[in-house]
């Protein structure tokens, strides 16, 4: 088991529990009452910890090394899945995976950022940081979905789009911008869910949809708390503060009307019961697709564009509108 810093109080309790169980297994001492007592203590402690998570702690949970990633959910939710590779222009990006799948009789295009499960795979997946070809592969699949009238499911889990020389040469910005433009007018339903990290342009590059969900312990922000700390506080030491200031949790995002729903996680985070998490996710995706499929493509696109058009918070002041002369006249 991996314990995050705020989970440390649990670590010693679990250790004690293990020891007592061992004693029980070795001898004829009745350890049942002590086990029960410790389990109660663990339960209380877990409740205390997980019911009061702050922004930074949720960021940590979203990055938990045992947290399930995109391919796990695809395997769990799809009875069949054929992975499709390549953007048809340059290469295949291993940081974004996608393909054709069947979710309870419904064919979908399902795609998302994929992180690696061990050191070697983390390199291979480039830590879930896509290059332009990743976004272009995603777009290719979405356009295919449109041709065959399949709904699109996007699972978001990225610390950001990759900031590299080649990424800039091949137009990282253009790739993300193009996806936003095309996704805004894609004629089939788009359902998105942040399943881990939702960092900035790299996240929204596959994140514009009719329904956007966030799992309970994920975050979505214009910048990671670390980078925000380094830019605004001019030090790497204010990531907790930045996480609070950015109001990046699912609760905040839902409260702001910037996402359409929160998907409950098993107690302590998705990694505590990945199967249950996949079941919850599938339920939300199916319901959203069903709701969206009864709309006409025109209605869906108009509603989608309107939804995004409403996003923003500002004030109005009274000004007297008048024509201005250019300096030359």
């Amino acid at each position, binding site marked *: 088991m991996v314990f995050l810093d705020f989970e440390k109080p649990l670590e010693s309790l679990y250790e004690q529990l293990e020891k007592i169980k061992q004693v029980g297994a070795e001898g004829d001492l009745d350890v049942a009452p002590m086990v029960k007592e410790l389990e109660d203590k663990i339960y209380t402690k877990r409740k205390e910890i997980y019911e009061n998570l702050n922004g930074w702690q949720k960021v940590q949970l979203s990055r938990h090394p045992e947290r399930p990633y995109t391919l796990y959910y695809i395997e769990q939710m799809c009875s069949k899945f054929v992975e499709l590779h390549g953007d048809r222009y340059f290469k295949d990006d291993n940081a974004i995976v996608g393909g054709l799948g069947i979710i309870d009789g419904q064919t979908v295009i399902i795609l998302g950022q994929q992180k690696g499960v061990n050191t070697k795979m983390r390199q291979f997946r480039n830590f879930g940081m896509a290059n332009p070809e990743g976004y272009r592969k995603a777009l290719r699949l979405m356009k295919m979905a449109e041709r065959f009238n399949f709904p699109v499911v996007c699972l978001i889990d990225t610390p950001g789009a990759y900031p590299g020389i080649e990424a800039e040469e091949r137009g990282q910005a253009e790739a993300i911008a193009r996806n936003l433009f095309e996704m805004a007018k894609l004629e089939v339903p788009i359902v998105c869910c942040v399943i881990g990290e939702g960092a900035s342009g790299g996240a929204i590059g596959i994140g514009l949809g009719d329904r956007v969900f966030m799992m309970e312990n994920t975050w979505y922000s214009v910048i990671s708390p670390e980078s925000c700390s380094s830019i605004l506080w001019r030090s790497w030491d204010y990531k907790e503060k930045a996480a609070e200031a950015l109001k990046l949790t699912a609760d905040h995002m839902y409260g702001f009307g910037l996402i359409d729903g929160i998907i409950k996680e098993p107690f302590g985070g998705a990694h505590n019961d990945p199967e249950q998490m996949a079941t919850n996710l599938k339920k939300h995706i199916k319901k959203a697709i069903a709701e969206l499929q009864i709309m006409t493509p025109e209605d869906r696109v108009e509603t989608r564009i309107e939804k995004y058009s409403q996003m923003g918070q*500002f004030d109005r002041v009274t000004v007297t509108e008048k024509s201005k002369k250019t300096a*030359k006249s």
Partner: protein
Amino acid sequence: MGWFNRLKDGIQTATKYKREAPDGLWYKCRSCGETSTSKEMRENYFKCPKCTYHVRIGSGEYFDIIFDGEYKELFNELTSKDFLEFTDLKPYHERLVSAKKKTKLTDAISVASGNVNQLPLVVAAMDFSFIGGSMGSVVGEKIGLAIDHSLQSKTPFLMISKSGGARMMESAFSLMQMAKTSAKLTRLAKAGIPYFSMLTDPTTGGVTASFAMLGDINFAEPKALIGFAGPRVIKETIKRDLPEGFQTSEFLLENGFLDFIVDRADLKEKLTDLLTIFSIKNAS
């Protein structure tokens, strides 16, 4: 070249549109180090007379350069608010107050409609002097409204980008402006109204990764910094030096992301050409 002469005369006498132009009597070029007078700079479209370095200018100067003589500023009633009560080293609402005071602007973007050699155009131009030209809700909303205005008046739209990217103090609201502006632009495309995107120094982050890269025509001023990630971030990530000319307008042109580069002195003429070309309907 009548308009050219008028413009030259005008800039000499202009005093109130100093917003982002070099202040004071002397200007020391950031590129070649040569010194010029402010008067020389104005006469030369705020380009260094010695090396043609394009000095950063504000929305007001661009409107002066582009429009025929009169233009109408739109949507100035919108003003940013500190919805998240964001505080880093300084509260966001205080940053807003001081930015407004310093720049005399309402936010990091101004929208105007007017004529360019008698051809109507809606222009949205960003101001780097206002919190680094960062995109918050007001920037996104004003671009959205400018697009609506273009749609209603069937007028082409020019976006002049100049931005460090998203406004962090508006967190996800800022991020969603990328989606919002891109979504709005699909309506312009559907209506067959041309969208010109001009990128100026600097254009980075979420601005590049949304409306700035989505023009029917994308063009830039010479030697502007244009990119997704900032050079510092890339350098820290890859842990080596960046190649000469990386993320400049010329680099983007070479890599296929710009249609052309335009010298500021030729901007109005180029726009006139584009507007003329797009205004000709199929003969039938």
